[in-house]
């Protein structure tokens, strides 16, 4: 599509000449005008959203690059013409130089990021200008841009921009300087477009809300066509670390890429070109590649032929090159994901935010990537529907083509039944009161299409997503287990503390008999040793932990109790306890309780002091030397703990398992 050298084909007389003349007229812009769907402008409701998405993505990128906490204002107004809307997106970014404004907004494929490799939202400069163009052609109205750069003596500029679709050049009108009251720096884009405003899963609101979740450092204001305003306040003042630019890594490069780079390089020799324009290429590797490809190291890069390039690509595949650096990525991080989720989803009062997982970065085909996952569970999240999937690529929500996305595929591959969600046959999108968030960050996210709506699937990425999901799901499962134990515990307490005494009271008063002694009945119903864990915070850095053991069985009991303490926080209060047996190098502690009588109780209490004291979860307590079925409030000591539990041979009493009452079948044979 290079059209710099315009030759005169019209002088020829063949059909081919005539057709060539026509072919000549197709510009990039025209091509995209005819193929809007490639960019995602294929339906009215989608066009509206895609435009806003491009503008907001750019605004966030610009703010972060300049180191400003983003403040984004989005307004959608319904115009008098049918299906016509005016969109305004304003940011507090660094602003755009006056002379650059026409090209940034009025020329497709223009932008500095096209050849740069870094984790950014808009990975090609096609977005905002495509939005402007779609507005132009659908309404006939120009876009209006205002921008001011930093500096007290700088003036703000405004202009109207239309794109000439034949030449891919901006047409500027009403270009004027003005004073932007109360604005230090920033850009405002205003354009009219055909579109349809919708609510629900693929709405502007949903896109902005999800953007707020993964950009907890941004403040986003939104005014919908009814004039209703929504504000997503920022959850943190902490800007994400600036993403670093990296040079392309030779692996995974296509021959066309190499030829393009070779033409555009500033380097004088092929050897220098390889060493300086790519990452992870040393002198030795450059030499190795060029020897294998039979290319002279001192040749000029621009002189490389297609065959040379082909040989070099083949050589690169044979040479061992270090994986690209991964420090160029900036994942959101587990604490900020949790914070973002809590901040935005709190209205649904979820029961639990499973600790999010950020996987270590990986690289495939020269592209580094990192996967993060989070799960929100319970509360008012509907429980009889498929889970909600929140997909993100480089902090941008993906709202379309859920089915085609690697994230969805990975979710469908995990057997969620093991983690407490319903899933038919252990495959597919699970059902249950959960929201699953997955974020893929990369210098080059592999999308399935130019519209950047779904992440393309390849084995390494999909397995990383599955890993992240499984780790996060494990956190969810252990929470659900705890909840189930709690509800079983409370059911038994309900029986012995309320129902049995009420039975005894009513029956004895009706029969005129004395109140019976209930302790043996209660022991038989409970038939457990109950480990009641409790914590109390004292001051900033002290946590008092206590474990009270109640023997609600009919026999005396001996058992070991185990916990994994933050080692640096323990003190004498732990060691002096008469039941304390020992602590290993990891901080795993064993206590021993001997001869606890029926109906008797015993308390073990100690102090944790220091920074990490409040990270201790007192519910994570384990027992040994006793049939775990007989214990409530603690789990059996796991085999992989690497410490020896108490070995006691119980003469045991045949533990009567909790049999549920056989269900009485009530049929629809009602007789009145």
């Amino acid at each position: 599509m290079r059209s710099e050298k315009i030759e005169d084909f019209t002088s020829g007389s063949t059909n081919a000449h005539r057709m060539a003349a026509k072919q000549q007229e197709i510009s990039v812009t025209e091509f995209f005008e005819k193929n809007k769907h490639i960019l995602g402008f294929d339906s009215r409701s989608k066009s509206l959203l895609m435009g806003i998405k491009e503008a907001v993505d750019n605004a966030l990128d610009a703010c972060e690059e300049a180191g400003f906490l983003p403040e984004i204002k989005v307004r959608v107004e319904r115009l008098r013409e049918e299906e016509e809307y005016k969109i305004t997106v304003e940011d507090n970014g660094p602003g755009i130089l006056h002379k650059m404004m026409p090209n940034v907004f009025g020329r497709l494929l223009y932008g500095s990021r096209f050849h740069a490799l870094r984790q950014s939202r808009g990975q090609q400069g096609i977005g905002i200008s495509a939005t402007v163009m779609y507005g132009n052609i659908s309404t006939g109205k120009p876009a209006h841009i205002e921008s001011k750069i930093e500096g007290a003596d700088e003036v703000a500029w405004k202009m109207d921009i239309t794109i000439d679709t034949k030449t891919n050049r901006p047409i500027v009108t009403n270009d004027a300087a003005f004073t932007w009251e109360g604005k230090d720096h920033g850009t405002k884009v205003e354009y009219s477009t055909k579109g349809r405003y919708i609510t629900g899963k693929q709405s502007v609101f949903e896109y902005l809300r999800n953007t707020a979740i993964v950009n907890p450092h941004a403040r986003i204001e939104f005014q919908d066509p009814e004039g209703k305003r929504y504000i997503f306040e920022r959850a943190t003042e902490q800007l994400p670390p600036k993403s670093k630019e990296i040079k392309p890594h030779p692996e995974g490069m296509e021959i066309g890429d190499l030829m393009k780079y070779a033409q555009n390089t500033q380097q004088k020799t092929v050897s220098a070109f390889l060493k300086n324009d790519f990452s992870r290429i040393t002198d030795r590797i450059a030499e190795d590649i060029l020897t294998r490809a039979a290319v002279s190291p001192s040749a000029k890069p621009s002189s490389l032929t297609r065959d040379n390039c082909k040989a070099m690509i083949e050589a690169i595949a044979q040479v061992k090159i270090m994986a690209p650096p991964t420090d160029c990525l900036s994942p959101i991080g587990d604490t900020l994901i949790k914070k973002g989720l809590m901040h935005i989803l709190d209205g649904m009062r979820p029961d639990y935010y499973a600790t999010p997982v950020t996987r270590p970065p990986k690289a495939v085909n020269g592209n580094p990537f990192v996967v993060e996952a989070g799960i929100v569970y319970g509360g008012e999240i509907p429980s009889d529907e498929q889970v909600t999937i929140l997909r993100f690529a480089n902090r941008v929500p993906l709202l379309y083509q859920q089915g085609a996305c690697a994230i969805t595929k990975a979710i469908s591959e995990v057997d969620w039944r093991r983690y407490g969600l319903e899933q038919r046959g252990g495959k597919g999108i699970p059902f249950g009161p959960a929201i699953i968030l997955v974020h893929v960050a990369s210098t080059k996210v592999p999308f399935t299409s130019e519209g950047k709506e779904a992440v393309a699937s390849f084995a390494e990425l999909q397995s990383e997503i599955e890993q992240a999901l499984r780790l996060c799901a494990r956190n969810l499962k252990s929470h659900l287990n705890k909840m189930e134990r709690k509800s079983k515990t409370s059911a038994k307490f309900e029986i012995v503390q309320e129902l049995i005494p009420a039975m005894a009271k009513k029956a004895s008063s009706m029969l005129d008999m004395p109140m019976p002694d209930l302790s043996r009945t209660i022991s038989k119903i409970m038939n457990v040793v109950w480990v009641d864990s409790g914590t109390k915070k004292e001051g900033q850095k002290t946590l008092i932990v206590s474990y009270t053991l109640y023997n609600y069985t009919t026999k005396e009991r001996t058992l070991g109790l185990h916990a994994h303490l933050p080692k640096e926080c323990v003190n004498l209060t732990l060691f002096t306890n008469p039941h304390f047996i020992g602590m290993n190098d990891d901080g795993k502690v064993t206590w021993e309780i001997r001869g606890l009588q029926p109906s008797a109780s015993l308390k073990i209490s100690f102090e944790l002091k220091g920074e990490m004291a409040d990270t201790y979860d007192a519910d994570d307590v384990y027992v040994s030397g006793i049939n775990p079925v007989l214990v409530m409030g603690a789990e059996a000591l796991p085999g992989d703990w690497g410490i020896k539990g108490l070995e006691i041979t119980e003469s045991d009493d045949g533990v009567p398992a909790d049999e549920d009452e056989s269900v009485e079948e009530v049929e629809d044979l009602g007789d009145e």
Partner: protein
Amino acid sequence: MATNERQRTATDNLTSVVRDIYDQLNGGNIPAMELPLRSKKNIEFDAQHNVWKYGDLQTSRTSKTVQGAQMMLRTIYTADFINEMIRDNKSSTLREMYYISEGWERAKFNSQDESNLLAEDLEIISKCMREDFKLRPEESGAHIYGNLDISTLTKKGMKKFNCMDDVAETGFAVPYNVEKENFGVGDTDAKFVMAIETGGMFARLVENGFPERHGAILVHLSGQPARSTRRLIKRLNEEKGLPVTVFTDGDPWSFRIFASVAYGAIKTAHISEYLATPTAQFIGITASDILNYDLPTDKLSDKDIGALEAELTDPRFKDGFWVGEIQAMLEMKKKSEQQALAKYGLDYVTDTYLPEKLTEMGLL
């Protein structure tokens, strides 16, 4: 048994249920109760009475679960409440009992189904009838029309009525208690009893003068018949020697209505011998009627098909006639209403259909 004696037995039996729970608590045990399993798996044919009754399968209710403990607590409260009612000579509806339980704290019923089920449980445990507990259903029984003298207890003592001459075309309303002390069955010249599912068909037969013309006593079942309705049909059959026929819609649910009249309902299988009339005969609408009379039909719903399939595993329907009917209906995938006979005119049912069917049965 006389009323007083039956009620004394009820009081004694209920008290001993409570004493049993008390003794278990006093002995340091987990209170538990054994009850017959109340499902179709546990229905057996009682050759002595010719009806279906509960078999030997038991389900145990223990206080180890919240649900079981709660049911037992309710049992104690309910037993106490019934004993009080008997002592004070009051009665209450099942619905009233449900509301009275509001004051029972943890023993409170969450739904009326729960209190109804418990009332039936107590019948089984105490071997008394709900009527002895002075618990009555919300609505009284259905209606009866035909040349039959009856006497019934009113506020002014026992009164006599004729169910044709003394009543409007809607018939005589059957009270909830049709035991002898309350309700007497007198003279009749009727030749048979016909129990009818729908009010529309009942009214059609009355309007067309069918009872007068053919010597029929009509009983309107109004869906699944109430206990008193079935008890009355049984008494007419036993005391007057009248054959009983059942005329319903032609769908799976109507088959069950017939089964509860003739064989005994699953929920009340503990008292089937009081309620069921084993010699009752099914008139229709049968699956073959749908074909033979070319009746307008509806498609079977998934629920209907499920109900028919469930009936194939119901021991009460295990005879050649019913297996054939159920399979025929499953095959044609159609059902029909008794009022569909109106296709051939309003008199068709009384002039043609019923005379044909009854002649076949040897009743006309």
